[in-house]
Every structure is written in structure tokens, then in C-alpha cells.
């Protein structure tokens, strides 16, 4: 898995997306390792067409299905579906149309922090939204991530405003 290469690829091709999941957690300061890049993509047709076209160049295949199963990632396929777990030449890439507890791309965008990654502007889900998403997903491994995220949120808050008293 090459997160840097994948993120630069997506950003340079001007695909509208928000980084979510484990990479968003790590980018925000978490210490939990992850093996795939999850993004919430904009389902507007123009973005889906651009995204599927450029992804063709890194050979997306469905992950965890029998070898040889026919699959073509094109705009029609994406618009008929929602979430796709892929493996590409750069590694595991999950495309999510919606995030549990958050909603679609527009909602994820509104709950994200815009910052600089590899010299490019990038949207990353906020710590507060990551906590909401983990709580909504509700699986044991999601719930197990919450104490660290809450600590991270508190630490960031206290460092941003050292004089603030917690209630």
C-alpha cells in the first residue's frame, strides 16, 4: 500500500473526495495503523466520470472476490452502486458514497478539516466526525477506536485553547 502515491494521484486528478477511516484518523494524529485508504467521493456524475476514468490507469479490481470475476469500474457501475472495495496498482482503495453517522460527500465535506497534504489542499474528516462515524458503525473494532479519538480531540482542544476549562 502506498498512501502517499494514492493520495497525490487522487488530488492531482482533481477528484472531489474526503479522506475518511483509518488514514483520516492517522492524518489527524491517531497512532492506529491501517492497511487501506477509505474515501467518501462526490456522487455528482461529472466527478464519478472523472474518478472512474482516471482510476482505470491504476487498474482497479474488486477486492476479496474470486480472480477473473468480470468487473469494470465505470460511471454507470458506480452510480448504480454506492461503496466499492478495490485493489489498485497502488494498494487497497475503498470508495464510499456515504459514511455511517455522517452521510454523503456533502455532509462529509461539511464535517471535514481542510489542510495541506503533500503540498496540496485535501479534505480530511474531523476528529469529532470520526468519533460520530465510529459510534454509528458500532462494530467492536470501531468502538475500540473511540477512547483514543476522544483523547485526541481533548488534547487538540486543550492545546488550541489552553485557558479553557472543561465542563
Amino acid at each position: 500500500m502506498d498512501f502517499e502515491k494514492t493520495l497525490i494521484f487522487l488530488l492531482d486528478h482533481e477528484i472531489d473526495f474526503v479522506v475518511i477511516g483509518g488514514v483520516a484518523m492517522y492524518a489527524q494524529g491517531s497512532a492506529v495503523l491501517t492497511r487501506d485508504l477509505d474515501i467518501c467521493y462526490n456522487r455528482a456524475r461529472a466527478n464519478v466520470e472523472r474518478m472512474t476514468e482516471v482510476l482505470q490507469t491504476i487498474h482497479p479490481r474488486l477486492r476479496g472476490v474470486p480472480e477473473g470475476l468480470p468487473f469494470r469500474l465505470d460511471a454507470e457501475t458506480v452510480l448504480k452502486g454506492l461503496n466499492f472495495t478495490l485493489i489498485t496498482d497502488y494498494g487497497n482503495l475503498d470508495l464510499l458514497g456515504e459514511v455511517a453517522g455522517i452521510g454523503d460527500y456533502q455532509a462529509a465535506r461539511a464535517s471535514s478539516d481542510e489542510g495541506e497534504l503533500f503540498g496540496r489542499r485535501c479534505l480530511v474528516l474531523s476528529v469529532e466526525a470520526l468519533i460520530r462515524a465510529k459510534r454509528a458503525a458500532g462494530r467492536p473494532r470501531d468502538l475500540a477506536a473511540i477512547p483514543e479519538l476522544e483523547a485526541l480531540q481533548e488534547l487538540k482542544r486543550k492545546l488550541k485553547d489552553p485557558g479553557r476549562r472543561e465542563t
Partner: protein
Amino acid sequence: MIEPQVASIAALCQSGLTTMSNSLRDLAVELVTNPPPGSKLAEAKEYGVDLTLLLDNLFKSPTERIRELDRAQRFLDELRSAFK
């Protein structure tokens, strides 16, 4: 009394990886070393979260964090293939 691991993180901060002021760094180290009772930091420490790792990450930029994640992945992949 600052734990040795935290002291090493504080030393790392001095190397210029962050623009955080010295007083904020001291506060960060103190919060991680001695989380206020009843705080989320204290809860997380009790749960088993290594708060020093969070501190370490906060002293890096998001780009540095993702590059570190890539390095960790490569190391784990090499480790895994060595024990196949």
C-alpha cells in the same frame, strides 16, 4: 517528574518538527504524563491507549504522519514476508 519516553518526545519537539511554542509543548507533555482526573485523556490511558504516541504524532505535520504510516506499512509487509 517526566517519564523517559515523554522526555524523548519533548527532545524531538526541540528539533524543530513543529511550530508549537515551548509553553504549549510543556502543556502537551504534562497532559499526557498526568492526564487530569475525569478527563477523556485519563479515560483513554485507563483503557490502554498510549498517549505518548498521540503526542508524538501531534508534533508532526499531516504529511509527515502519512509518510510514517507508509513506512510502517512497508516494514510490516517485510516482516510478514520474512516469517511466511
